[in-house]
Protein backbone atom coordinates (compact mmCIF):
# COMPACT_ATOMS: atom_id res chain seq x y z
CA UNK A 1 0.00 0.00 0.00
CA UNK A 2 2.85 2.32 0.84
CA UNK A 3 4.47 1.50 -2.49
CA UNK A 4 1.23 2.32 -4.25
CA UNK A 5 0.94 5.64 -2.40
CA UNK A 6 4.55 6.48 -3.24
CA UNK A 7 3.92 5.74 -6.90
CA UNK A 8 0.82 7.91 -6.93
CA UNK A 9 2.87 10.73 -5.43
CA UNK A 10 5.65 10.19 -7.97
CA UNK A 11 3.05 10.26 -10.70
CA UNK A 12 1.64 13.55 -9.44
CA UNK A 13 5.12 15.11 -9.23
CA UNK A 14 6.11 14.03 -12.74
CA UNK A 15 2.59 14.87 -13.90
CA UNK A 16 2.99 18.46 -12.67
CA UNK A 17 6.04 18.82 -14.89
CA UNK A 18 4.38 17.12 -17.86
CA UNK A 19 1.27 19.28 -17.54
CA UNK A 20 3.19 22.55 -17.28
CA UNK A 21 5.25 21.72 -20.37
CA UNK A 22 2.28 20.30 -22.28
CA UNK A 23 0.20 23.41 -21.51
CA UNK A 24 2.79 25.58 -23.25
CA UNK A 25 3.05 23.20 -26.16
CA UNK A 26 -0.69 23.08 -26.66
CA UNK A 27 -1.06 26.88 -26.41
CA UNK A 28 1.63 27.40 -29.04
CA UNK A 29 0.12 24.76 -31.28
CA UNK A 30 -3.34 26.22 -30.88
CA UNK A 31 -2.44 29.83 -31.60
CA UNK A 32 0.36 29.37 -34.15
CA UNK A 33 -0.12 25.86 -35.52
CA UNK A 34 3.54 25.13 -34.83
CA UNK A 35 4.56 21.87 -33.15
CA UNK A 36 7.34 23.36 -31.03
CA UNK A 37 9.83 20.52 -30.87
CA UNK A 38 12.12 22.82 -28.85
CA UNK A 39 9.71 23.19 -25.95
CA UNK A 40 11.43 20.69 -23.68
CA UNK A 41 14.66 22.60 -24.23
CA UNK A 42 13.04 25.70 -22.78
CA UNK A 43 12.14 23.55 -19.77
CA UNK A 44 15.77 22.35 -19.62
CA UNK A 45 17.01 25.95 -19.69
CA UNK A 46 14.67 26.82 -16.85
CA UNK A 47 16.22 24.02 -14.79
CA UNK A 48 19.78 25.08 -15.67
CA UNK A 49 19.19 28.76 -14.95
CA UNK A 50 17.80 28.00 -11.54
CA UNK A 51 20.71 25.59 -10.94
CA UNK A 52 23.28 28.19 -11.97
CA UNK A 53 21.70 30.96 -9.92
CA UNK A 54 21.25 28.88 -6.78
CA UNK A 55 24.44 26.83 -6.83
CA UNK A 56 26.90 29.21 -8.44
CA UNK A 57 25.59 32.68 -7.63
CA UNK A 58 24.05 31.83 -4.27
CA UNK A 59 20.70 33.38 -5.14
CA UNK A 60 17.68 32.31 -3.08
CA UNK A 61 15.66 29.48 -4.63
CA UNK A 62 12.45 31.45 -5.29
CA UNK A 63 14.30 34.48 -6.63
CA UNK A 64 16.31 32.20 -8.89
CA UNK A 65 13.07 30.73 -10.19
CA UNK A 66 11.63 34.19 -10.80
CA UNK A 67 14.71 35.22 -12.77
CA UNK A 68 14.60 32.00 -14.79
CA UNK A 69 10.92 32.51 -15.57
CA UNK A 70 11.39 36.10 -16.72
CA UNK A 71 14.46 35.21 -18.78
CA UNK A 72 12.70 32.34 -20.50
CA UNK A 73 9.60 34.44 -21.16
CA UNK A 74 11.78 36.99 -22.95
CA UNK A 75 13.62 34.22 -24.79
CA UNK A 76 10.29 32.76 -25.88
CA UNK A 77 9.10 36.10 -27.23
CA UNK A 78 12.39 36.60 -29.07
CA UNK A 79 12.15 33.11 -30.54
CA UNK A 80 8.66 33.82 -31.81
CA UNK A 81 9.67 37.11 -33.40
CA UNK A 82 12.92 35.98 -34.95
CA UNK A 83 12.17 32.42 -36.05
CA UNK A 84 8.50 31.49 -36.13
CA UNK A 85 6.88 34.75 -37.22
CA UNK A 86 8.89 34.98 -40.46
CA UNK A 87 7.78 31.42 -41.24
CA UNK A 88 4.08 32.03 -40.64
CA UNK A 89 3.22 31.93 -44.33
CA UNK A 90 5.79 29.31 -45.32
CA UNK A 91 4.81 25.66 -45.77
CA UNK A 92 4.22 23.86 -42.42
CA UNK A 93 7.28 21.72 -43.11
CA UNK A 94 9.50 24.79 -42.67
CA UNK A 95 8.35 25.74 -39.18
CA UNK A 96 8.67 22.12 -38.06
CA UNK A 97 12.25 21.98 -39.31
CA UNK A 98 13.00 25.37 -37.71
CA UNK A 99 11.70 24.05 -34.38
CA UNK A 100 13.97 21.03 -34.69
CA UNK A 101 16.89 23.39 -35.37
CA UNK A 102 16.10 25.48 -32.29
CA UNK A 103 15.92 22.28 -30.28
CA UNK A 104 19.39 21.13 -31.40
CA UNK A 105 20.76 24.64 -30.87
CA UNK A 106 19.47 25.09 -27.31
CA UNK A 107 20.66 21.68 -26.21
CA UNK A 108 24.11 22.31 -27.66
CA UNK A 109 24.34 25.73 -26.02
CA UNK A 110 23.49 24.21 -22.62
CA UNK A 111 26.06 21.51 -23.16
CA UNK A 112 28.70 24.11 -23.99
CA UNK A 113 27.93 26.30 -20.99
CA UNK A 114 27.35 23.67 -18.33
CA UNK A 115 28.96 20.55 -19.75
CA UNK A 116 27.46 17.07 -20.11
CA UNK A 117 27.61 16.24 -16.35
CA UNK A 118 24.54 15.65 -14.25
CA UNK A 119 23.85 18.64 -11.99
CA UNK A 120 21.87 18.99 -8.83
CA UNK A 121 20.25 22.02 -7.21
CA UNK A 122 19.76 22.68 -3.51
CA UNK A 123 16.36 23.59 -2.16
CA UNK A 124 15.43 25.38 1.04
CA UNK A 125 12.94 22.55 1.56
CA UNK A 126 15.42 19.69 1.85
CA UNK A 127 13.74 17.92 4.79
CA UNK A 128 11.45 14.94 4.92
CA UNK A 129 7.91 15.47 6.16
CA UNK A 130 5.29 12.93 7.06
CA UNK A 131 2.14 12.95 4.98
CA UNK A 132 -0.50 10.65 6.50
CA UNK A 133 2.36 8.57 7.84
CA UNK A 134 4.11 8.50 4.50
CA UNK A 135 7.64 9.98 4.46
CA UNK A 136 7.82 12.56 1.69
CA UNK A 137 10.60 14.93 0.59
CA UNK A 138 9.28 18.39 1.45
CA UNK A 139 10.27 19.83 -1.90
CA UNK A 140 7.89 17.43 -3.64
CA UNK A 141 4.97 18.99 -1.81
CA UNK A 142 6.28 22.46 -2.66
CA UNK A 143 6.47 21.36 -6.29
CA UNK A 144 2.90 20.05 -6.29
CA UNK A 145 1.62 23.26 -4.74
CA UNK A 146 3.61 25.64 -6.91
CA UNK A 147 2.71 23.78 -10.10
CA UNK A 148 -0.97 23.79 -9.18
CA UNK A 149 -0.78 27.51 -8.34
CA UNK A 150 0.87 28.26 -11.72
CA UNK A 151 -1.82 26.34 -13.56
CA UNK A 152 -4.56 28.13 -11.63
CA UNK A 153 -2.93 31.45 -12.50
CA UNK A 154 -2.86 30.46 -16.16
CA UNK A 155 -6.51 29.43 -16.13
CA UNK A 156 -7.54 32.67 -14.44
CA UNK A 157 -5.50 34.63 -16.96
CA UNK A 158 -7.04 32.77 -19.90
CA UNK A 159 -10.62 33.02 -18.68
CA UNK A 160 -10.77 36.34 -16.80
CA UNK A 161 -8.60 38.76 -18.76
CA UNK A 162 -8.95 40.35 -22.20
CA UNK A 163 -5.48 39.21 -23.21
CA UNK A 164 -6.34 35.67 -22.16
CA UNK A 165 -9.59 35.80 -24.10
CA UNK A 166 -7.65 36.92 -27.18
CA UNK A 167 -5.34 33.93 -26.83
CA UNK A 168 -8.27 31.54 -26.44
CA UNK A 169 -10.07 33.04 -29.41
CA UNK A 170 -6.96 32.75 -31.56
CA UNK A 171 -6.40 29.17 -30.48
CA UNK A 172 -9.94 28.29 -31.46
CA UNK A 173 -9.96 30.03 -34.82
CA UNK A 174 -7.03 32.18 -35.99
CA UNK A 175 -8.82 33.59 -39.06
CA UNK A 176 -11.87 34.61 -37.11
CA UNK A 177 -9.66 36.17 -34.44
CA UNK A 178 -7.98 38.27 -37.10
CA UNK A 179 -11.39 39.32 -38.44
CA UNK A 180 -12.63 40.56 -35.07
CA UNK A 181 -9.54 42.72 -34.79
CA UNK A 182 -7.29 40.65 -32.53
CA UNK A 183 -3.62 41.38 -33.15
CA UNK A 184 -2.60 37.76 -33.79
CA UNK A 185 1.06 38.74 -33.98
CA UNK A 186 1.00 40.03 -30.42
CA UNK A 187 -1.05 37.06 -29.31
CA UNK A 188 1.55 34.70 -30.78
CA UNK A 189 4.38 36.51 -29.05
CA UNK A 190 2.55 36.57 -25.72
CA UNK A 191 1.65 32.91 -26.06
CA UNK A 192 5.26 31.98 -26.69
CA UNK A 193 6.40 34.04 -23.70
CA UNK A 194 3.79 32.51 -21.37
CA UNK A 195 4.49 29.00 -22.60
CA UNK A 196 8.24 29.40 -22.13
CA UNK A 197 7.61 30.83 -18.65
CA UNK A 198 5.51 27.78 -17.71
CA UNK A 199 8.28 25.50 -18.96
CA UNK A 200 10.77 27.48 -16.85
CA UNK A 201 8.58 27.04 -13.77
CA UNK A 202 8.55 23.31 -14.39
CA UNK A 203 12.31 23.21 -14.90
CA UNK A 204 13.07 25.22 -11.76
CA UNK A 205 10.67 23.11 -9.70
CA UNK A 206 12.09 19.77 -10.77
CA UNK A 207 15.79 20.81 -10.58
CA UNK A 208 16.23 20.03 -6.83
CA UNK A 209 14.68 16.56 -6.97
CA UNK A 210 15.85 15.40 -10.35
CA UNK A 211 19.07 15.53 -12.31
CA UNK A 212 19.80 18.48 -14.54
CA UNK A 213 21.56 17.64 -17.80
CA UNK A 214 21.49 18.92 -21.41
CA UNK A 215 19.32 16.14 -22.85
CA UNK A 216 16.70 16.28 -20.06
CA UNK A 217 14.37 18.28 -22.29
CA UNK A 218 14.11 15.87 -25.19
CA UNK A 219 12.22 13.17 -23.35
CA UNK A 220 9.90 15.75 -21.79
CA UNK A 221 9.14 17.29 -25.21
CA UNK A 222 8.26 13.91 -26.56
CA UNK A 223 6.05 13.10 -23.59
CA UNK A 224 4.38 16.50 -23.90
CA UNK A 225 3.58 15.74 -27.53
CA UNK A 226 1.98 12.48 -26.49
CA UNK A 227 -0.13 14.36 -23.93
CA UNK A 228 -1.15 17.10 -26.34
CA UNK A 229 -2.10 14.61 -29.02
CA UNK A 230 -4.14 12.61 -26.51
CA UNK A 231 -5.73 15.70 -24.98
CA UNK A 232 -6.36 17.38 -28.31
CA UNK A 233 -3.88 19.67 -30.07
CA UNK A 234 -4.72 23.15 -28.77
CA UNK A 235 -6.82 22.00 -25.81
CA UNK A 236 -5.84 23.49 -22.43
CA UNK A 237 -7.90 21.14 -20.28
CA UNK A 238 -6.66 18.18 -22.29
CA UNK A 239 -3.03 19.09 -21.63
CA UNK A 240 -3.69 19.75 -17.97
CA UNK A 241 -5.42 16.47 -17.22
CA UNK A 242 -3.43 14.48 -19.77
CA UNK A 243 -0.12 15.37 -18.13
CA UNK A 244 -1.15 13.94 -14.78
CA UNK A 245 -2.79 10.89 -16.36
CA UNK A 246 0.25 9.97 -18.43
CA UNK A 247 2.62 10.37 -15.49
CA UNK A 248 0.38 8.24 -13.25
CA UNK A 249 0.13 5.58 -15.96
CA UNK A 250 3.90 5.59 -16.30
CA UNK A 251 4.71 5.39 -12.63
CA UNK A 252 2.14 2.67 -11.94
CA UNK A 253 2.95 0.82 -15.16
CA UNK A 254 6.66 1.05 -14.41
CA UNK A 255 6.10 -0.43 -10.97
CA UNK A 256 3.51 -3.08 -11.66
CA UNK A 257 4.04 -3.95 -15.33
CA UNK A 258 7.59 -3.46 -16.53
CA UNK A 259 10.27 -1.08 -15.33
CA UNK A 260 12.43 -1.77 -18.39
CA UNK A 261 9.84 -0.58 -20.80
CA UNK A 262 8.44 2.28 -18.68
CA UNK A 263 9.68 4.89 -21.15
CA UNK A 264 7.97 3.06 -23.99
CA UNK A 265 4.46 3.38 -22.51
CA UNK A 266 3.86 6.92 -23.71
CA UNK A 267 5.03 6.29 -27.24
CA UNK A 268 3.14 3.06 -27.60
CA UNK A 269 -0.01 4.83 -26.42
CA UNK A 270 0.61 7.59 -28.95
CA UNK A 271 1.18 5.09 -31.74
CA UNK A 272 -2.00 3.25 -30.82
CA UNK A 273 -4.04 6.45 -30.77
CA UNK A 274 -2.75 7.50 -34.19
CA UNK A 275 -3.26 4.01 -35.57
CA UNK A 276 -6.95 4.10 -34.79
CA UNK A 277 -7.52 7.86 -34.95
CA UNK A 278 -5.09 9.25 -37.56
CA UNK A 279 -6.14 12.83 -36.78
CA UNK A 280 -5.89 12.53 -32.99
CA UNK A 281 -8.49 11.86 -30.38
CA UNK A 282 -10.38 15.12 -30.33
CA UNK A 283 -10.49 16.22 -33.92
CA UNK A 284 -12.91 14.69 -36.32
CA UNK A 285 -11.21 13.03 -39.27
CA UNK A 286 -12.54 15.16 -42.13
Amino acid at each position, binding site marked *: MELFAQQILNGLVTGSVYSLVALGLTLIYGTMNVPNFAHGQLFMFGAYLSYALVMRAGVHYWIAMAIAVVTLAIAGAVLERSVFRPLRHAPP*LNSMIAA*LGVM*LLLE*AVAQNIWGPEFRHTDTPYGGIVSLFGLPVAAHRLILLGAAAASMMALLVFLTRTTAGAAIRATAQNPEAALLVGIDTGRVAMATFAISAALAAVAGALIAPISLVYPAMGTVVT*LKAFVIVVLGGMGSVTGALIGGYLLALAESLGGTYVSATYQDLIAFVVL*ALVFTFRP*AGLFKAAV
Partner: protein
Amino acid sequence: MHLLPWAALLAAVIVPLLLPNEYYLQILTQGYVFAISACGLNVILGLAGQLSLAHSGFFGIGAYALALLATKAGISFWIGLPAGVALCAVSGYAIGSICLRSKGHYFAIFTMAVGIIIHLVIQKWESLTRGHIGVIGIPGPGPIGPISFDSTLARSYLALFFLVITVLAISRLVRSPVGRTLMAVRESEPLAAAVGVDVMAAKRLAFTISASLAGLAGGLFAGFIGFLGPESANVEMTFNTLLYVMVGGIGSLAGPVAGTFIVYGLSQVLAVLQHYQMIIFGLALVLLILFMPAGLAGAARSLMRQRVSEVKPS
Protein backbone atom coordinates in the same frame (compact mmCIF):
# COMPACT_ATOMS: atom_id res chain seq x y z
CA MET B 1 25.72 20.85 -67.40
CA HIS B 2 25.62 17.09 -67.99
CA LEU B 3 29.37 16.97 -67.44
CA LEU B 4 28.93 17.77 -63.77
CA PRO B 5 27.82 14.29 -62.55
CA TRP B 6 30.66 12.66 -64.47
CA ALA B 7 33.20 15.12 -63.06
CA ALA B 8 31.89 14.41 -59.55
CA LEU B 9 32.17 10.67 -60.14
CA LEU B 10 35.70 11.02 -61.50
CA ALA B 11 36.66 13.07 -58.45
CA ALA B 12 35.08 10.45 -56.18
CA VAL B 13 37.17 7.74 -57.84
CA ILE B 14 40.44 9.68 -57.69
CA VAL B 15 40.16 11.39 -54.29
CA PRO B 16 40.49 8.22 -52.13
CA LEU B 17 43.85 7.53 -53.81
CA LEU B 18 45.13 10.97 -52.82
CA LEU B 19 44.08 10.92 -49.19
CA PRO B 20 47.06 11.04 -46.82
CA ASN B 21 45.90 8.42 -44.32
CA GLU B 22 43.40 5.80 -43.26
CA TYR B 23 41.56 8.22 -41.00
CA TYR B 24 40.43 10.41 -43.86
CA LEU B 25 39.57 7.36 -45.90
CA GLN B 26 37.32 6.13 -43.12
CA ILE B 27 35.60 9.48 -42.90
CA LEU B 28 35.08 9.42 -46.63
CA THR B 29 33.56 5.95 -46.44
CA GLN B 30 31.26 6.98 -43.59
CA GLY B 31 30.34 10.01 -45.64
CA TYR B 32 29.21 7.78 -48.51
CA VAL B 33 27.17 5.66 -46.12
CA PHE B 34 25.45 8.66 -44.50
CA ALA B 35 24.87 10.13 -47.96
CA ILE B 36 22.91 7.00 -48.90
CA SER B 37 20.80 7.51 -45.78
CA ALA B 38 20.34 11.20 -46.64
CA CYS B 39 19.21 10.26 -50.16
CA GLY B 40 16.69 7.94 -48.52
CA LEU B 41 15.32 10.68 -46.28
CA ASN B 42 15.13 12.94 -49.31
CA VAL B 43 12.79 10.48 -51.06
CA ILE B 44 10.08 10.81 -48.42
CA LEU B 45 10.84 14.39 -47.36
CA GLY B 46 11.97 16.05 -50.58
CA LEU B 47 10.07 14.08 -53.21
CA ALA B 48 6.86 13.26 -51.34
CA GLY B 49 6.90 16.21 -48.90
CA GLN B 50 6.45 14.21 -45.69
CA LEU B 51 8.68 14.83 -42.65
CA SER B 52 9.48 11.33 -41.38
CA LEU B 53 11.34 11.32 -38.07
CA ALA B 54 11.53 7.53 -37.97
CA HIS B 55 14.40 7.49 -40.44
CA SER B 56 17.22 6.46 -38.11
CA GLY B 57 14.95 3.75 -36.73
CA PHE B 58 15.15 2.08 -40.13
CA PHE B 59 18.88 2.76 -40.24
CA GLY B 60 19.05 0.85 -36.95
CA ILE B 61 16.87 -1.99 -38.22
CA GLY B 62 19.11 -2.49 -41.25
CA ALA B 63 22.25 -2.28 -39.12
CA TYR B 64 21.05 -4.62 -36.39
CA ALA B 65 19.62 -7.09 -38.90
CA LEU B 66 23.03 -7.50 -40.49
CA ALA B 67 24.88 -7.44 -37.18
CA LEU B 68 22.67 -10.01 -35.45
CA LEU B 69 22.41 -12.32 -38.46
CA ALA B 70 26.19 -12.32 -38.69
CA THR B 71 27.06 -12.67 -35.02
CA LYS B 72 24.21 -14.98 -33.95
CA ALA B 73 23.65 -17.08 -37.06
CA GLY B 74 26.97 -16.73 -38.87
CA ILE B 75 25.27 -15.33 -41.94
CA SER B 76 27.62 -13.42 -44.25
CA PHE B 77 27.58 -9.70 -44.98
CA TRP B 78 26.42 -10.33 -48.52
CA ILE B 79 23.29 -12.12 -47.35
CA GLY B 80 22.77 -9.97 -44.25
CA LEU B 81 22.81 -6.72 -46.20
CA PRO B 82 19.94 -7.54 -48.59
CA ALA B 83 18.11 -9.24 -45.71
CA GLY B 84 18.30 -6.02 -43.70
CA VAL B 85 17.14 -3.97 -46.67
CA ALA B 86 14.25 -6.36 -47.24
CA LEU B 87 13.28 -6.17 -43.57
CA CYS B 88 13.28 -2.38 -43.79
CA ALA B 89 11.21 -2.48 -46.97
CA VAL B 90 8.60 -4.75 -45.37
CA SER B 91 8.49 -2.89 -42.05
CA GLY B 92 8.60 0.43 -43.93
CA TYR B 93 5.60 -0.63 -45.99
CA ALA B 94 3.69 -1.74 -42.90
CA ILE B 95 4.58 1.26 -40.75
CA GLY B 96 4.03 3.63 -43.67
CA SER B 97 0.57 2.19 -44.25
CA ILE B 98 -0.35 3.17 -40.71
CA CYS B 99 1.60 6.40 -40.17
CA LEU B 100 0.74 7.98 -43.50
CA ARG B 101 -2.94 8.05 -42.63
CA SER B 102 -1.94 10.91 -40.32
CA LYS B 103 -1.04 14.09 -42.11
CA GLY B 104 1.32 17.04 -41.69
CA HIS B 105 2.29 17.68 -38.08
CA TYR B 106 0.57 14.51 -36.95
CA PHE B 107 2.66 12.44 -39.33
CA ALA B 108 5.87 14.02 -38.04
CA ILE B 109 4.90 13.41 -34.41
CA PHE B 110 3.69 9.88 -35.14
CA THR B 111 6.90 8.92 -36.95
CA MET B 112 8.97 10.50 -34.20
CA ALA B 113 7.22 8.21 -31.71
CA VAL B 114 7.84 5.24 -34.02
CA GLY B 115 11.52 6.17 -34.28
CA ILE B 116 11.80 6.37 -30.50
CA ILE B 117 10.01 3.06 -30.06
CA ILE B 118 12.44 1.35 -32.46
CA HIS B 119 15.39 2.94 -30.65
CA LEU B 120 14.09 2.01 -27.19
CA VAL B 121 13.32 -1.55 -28.23
CA ILE B 122 16.85 -1.96 -29.59
CA GLN B 123 18.25 -0.45 -26.41
CA LYS B 124 16.12 -2.39 -23.94
CA TRP B 125 15.89 -5.80 -25.61
CA GLU B 126 19.16 -6.83 -24.07
CA SER B 127 18.85 -10.57 -24.64
CA LEU B 128 18.80 -9.94 -28.38
CA THR B 129 20.82 -6.74 -28.89
CA ARG B 130 22.99 -6.65 -25.76
CA GLY B 131 21.51 -3.20 -25.05
CA HIS B 132 23.99 -0.42 -24.29
CA ILE B 133 26.98 -2.73 -24.65
CA GLY B 134 26.15 -3.21 -28.30
CA VAL B 135 27.14 -5.85 -30.80
CA ILE B 136 30.84 -6.36 -31.45
CA GLY B 137 32.77 -8.44 -33.96
CA ILE B 138 30.47 -7.87 -36.90
CA PRO B 139 32.21 -9.31 -39.95
CA GLY B 140 32.77 -7.01 -42.91
CA PRO B 141 32.12 -7.86 -46.55
CA GLY B 142 33.88 -11.04 -47.68
CA PRO B 143 35.68 -11.22 -51.02
CA ILE B 144 33.75 -11.47 -54.28
CA GLY B 145 35.84 -13.65 -56.58
CA PRO B 146 39.26 -12.05 -56.71
CA ILE B 147 38.14 -8.75 -55.15
CA SER B 148 38.78 -8.46 -51.44
CA PHE B 149 37.14 -5.81 -49.28
CA ASP B 150 39.51 -6.01 -46.36
CA SER B 151 41.27 -2.69 -46.99
CA THR B 152 39.65 0.61 -46.10
CA LEU B 153 40.25 1.74 -49.67
CA ALA B 154 38.32 -1.17 -51.14
CA ARG B 155 35.48 -0.56 -48.69
CA SER B 156 35.32 3.09 -49.60
CA TYR B 157 34.90 2.11 -53.26
CA LEU B 158 32.24 -0.39 -52.27
CA ALA B 159 30.35 2.34 -50.39
CA LEU B 160 30.80 4.67 -53.35
CA PHE B 161 29.40 1.96 -55.62
CA PHE B 162 26.22 1.72 -53.51
CA LEU B 163 25.91 5.50 -53.36
CA VAL B 164 26.20 5.82 -57.13
CA ILE B 165 23.57 3.11 -57.61
CA THR B 166 21.33 4.92 -55.11
CA VAL B 167 21.65 8.31 -56.82
CA LEU B 168 21.20 6.75 -60.24
CA ALA B 169 18.08 4.88 -59.13
CA ILE B 170 16.55 7.98 -57.57
CA SER B 171 17.39 10.05 -60.61
CA ARG B 172 15.62 7.55 -62.88
CA LEU B 173 12.68 7.52 -60.50
CA VAL B 174 12.43 11.33 -60.39
CA ARG B 175 12.43 11.57 -64.18
CA SER B 176 9.74 8.91 -64.54
CA PRO B 177 5.96 9.04 -64.17
CA VAL B 178 6.48 7.73 -60.63
CA GLY B 179 8.59 10.79 -59.81
CA ARG B 180 5.99 13.13 -61.28
CA THR B 181 3.33 11.39 -59.22
CA LEU B 182 5.31 12.06 -56.04
CA MET B 183 5.80 15.67 -57.11
CA ALA B 184 2.03 15.95 -57.54
CA VAL B 185 1.41 14.57 -54.05
CA ARG B 186 3.95 16.98 -52.57
CA GLU B 187 2.53 20.03 -54.33
CA SER B 188 -1.17 19.38 -53.79
CA GLU B 189 -2.81 16.24 -52.46
CA PRO B 190 -6.37 17.26 -53.38
CA LEU B 191 -5.40 18.03 -56.98
CA ALA B 192 -3.34 14.85 -57.26
CA ALA B 193 -6.32 12.79 -56.10
CA ALA B 194 -8.61 14.70 -58.46
CA VAL B 195 -6.51 13.67 -61.47
CA GLY B 196 -6.53 10.03 -60.42
CA VAL B 197 -3.38 9.70 -58.31
CA ASP B 198 -3.70 7.22 -55.45
CA VAL B 199 -2.12 9.58 -52.92
CA MET B 200 -1.77 6.97 -50.18
CA ALA B 201 -0.10 4.45 -52.49
CA ALA B 202 2.34 7.09 -53.74
CA LYS B 203 3.33 8.19 -50.25
CA ARG B 204 3.62 4.60 -49.08
CA LEU B 205 5.92 3.83 -51.99
CA ALA B 206 8.16 6.78 -51.12
CA PHE B 207 8.19 5.75 -47.46
CA THR B 208 9.14 2.17 -48.36
CA ILE B 209 11.98 3.28 -50.64
CA SER B 210 13.15 5.73 -48.00
CA ALA B 211 13.17 3.05 -45.28
CA SER B 212 14.97 0.60 -47.57
CA LEU B 213 17.75 3.09 -48.30
CA ALA B 214 18.10 3.85 -44.59
CA GLY B 215 18.41 0.09 -44.04
CA LEU B 216 21.04 -0.20 -46.78
CA ALA B 217 23.06 2.57 -45.17
CA GLY B 218 22.62 0.97 -41.73
CA GLY B 219 23.82 -2.40 -42.99
CA LEU B 220 26.90 -0.91 -44.63
CA PHE B 221 27.58 1.10 -41.45
CA ALA B 222 27.46 -2.00 -39.24
CA GLY B 223 29.58 -4.11 -41.59
CA PHE B 224 32.24 -1.46 -42.07
CA ILE B 225 32.62 -0.35 -38.46
CA GLY B 226 32.43 -3.85 -37.02
CA PHE B 227 30.54 -2.85 -33.87
CA LEU B 228 27.15 -1.35 -33.26
CA GLY B 229 25.37 0.42 -30.39
CA PRO B 230 21.74 1.53 -29.96
CA GLU B 231 22.71 5.17 -30.54
CA SER B 232 22.91 4.37 -34.26
CA ALA B 233 19.10 4.29 -34.22
CA ASN B 234 18.76 7.43 -32.08
CA VAL B 235 16.37 10.19 -33.17
CA GLU B 236 19.37 12.54 -33.09
CA MET B 237 20.69 10.61 -36.09
CA THR B 238 17.52 11.53 -37.95
CA PHE B 239 18.10 15.19 -37.09
CA ASN B 240 21.67 15.01 -38.42
CA THR B 241 20.45 13.41 -41.63
CA LEU B 242 17.76 16.09 -41.88
CA LEU B 243 20.48 18.72 -41.66
CA TYR B 244 22.47 17.05 -44.46
CA VAL B 245 19.39 17.12 -46.68
CA MET B 246 18.51 20.72 -45.79
CA VAL B 247 22.03 22.05 -46.37
CA GLY B 248 22.39 20.32 -49.72
CA GLY B 249 18.91 21.09 -50.92
CA ILE B 250 15.66 19.33 -50.17
CA GLY B 251 14.20 17.53 -53.16
CA SER B 252 17.28 17.90 -55.36
CA LEU B 253 19.25 14.89 -56.57
CA ALA B 254 22.79 15.81 -55.67
CA GLY B 255 21.82 18.01 -52.72
CA PRO B 256 21.69 15.34 -49.99
CA VAL B 257 25.06 13.95 -51.11
CA ALA B 258 26.70 17.37 -51.20
CA GLY B 259 25.07 18.32 -47.89
CA THR B 260 26.35 15.15 -46.21
CA PHE B 261 29.88 15.80 -47.37
CA ILE B 262 29.85 19.43 -46.38
CA VAL B 263 28.31 18.96 -42.94
CA TYR B 264 29.67 15.56 -41.95
CA GLY B 265 33.04 16.14 -43.64
CA LEU B 266 33.59 19.53 -42.02
CA SER B 267 32.50 18.33 -38.60
CA GLN B 268 35.02 15.47 -38.74
CA VAL B 269 37.91 17.29 -40.35
CA LEU B 270 37.88 20.61 -38.52
CA ALA B 271 38.72 19.95 -34.88
CA VAL B 272 37.62 23.46 -33.93
CA LEU B 273 34.15 22.65 -35.10
CA GLN B 274 33.83 19.58 -32.98
CA HIS B 275 33.32 21.47 -29.74
CA TYR B 276 30.72 23.78 -31.23
CA GLN B 277 29.41 21.25 -33.73
CA MET B 278 25.83 20.97 -32.52
CA ILE B 279 25.53 24.71 -31.91
CA ILE B 280 26.54 25.32 -35.49
CA PHE B 281 24.30 22.51 -36.77
CA GLY B 282 21.25 23.81 -34.93
CA LEU B 283 21.88 27.39 -35.93
CA ALA B 284 22.52 26.30 -39.52
CA LEU B 285 19.20 24.46 -39.64
CA VAL B 286 17.30 27.54 -38.39
CA LEU B 287 19.12 29.99 -40.66
CA LEU B 288 18.74 27.72 -43.67
CA ILE B 289 15.00 27.36 -43.22
CA LEU B 290 14.67 31.13 -42.72
CA PHE B 291 16.87 32.37 -45.52
CA MET B 292 17.67 29.48 -47.86
CA PRO B 293 14.93 26.87 -47.56
CA ALA B 294 15.93 25.20 -50.81
CA GLY B 295 19.51 24.66 -49.62
CA LEU B 296 22.64 24.97 -51.73
CA ALA B 297 21.04 23.24 -54.70
CA GLY B 298 18.17 25.72 -54.59
CA ALA B 299 20.57 28.66 -54.37
CA ALA B 300 22.53 27.30 -57.33
CA ARG B 301 19.30 26.83 -59.27
CA SER B 302 18.05 30.36 -58.74
CA LEU B 303 21.52 31.68 -59.60
CA MET B 304 21.40 29.75 -62.87
CA ARG B 305 17.93 31.04 -63.60
CA GLN B 306 19.10 34.57 -62.95
CA ARG B 307 22.04 34.16 -65.29
CA VAL B 308 19.92 32.64 -68.01
CA SER B 309 17.50 35.56 -67.86
CA GLU B 310 20.41 38.00 -67.95
CA VAL B 311 21.73 36.39 -71.12
CA LYS B 312 18.42 36.44 -72.95
CA PRO B 313 16.00 38.93 -71.48
CA SER B 314 12.45 37.74 -72.00
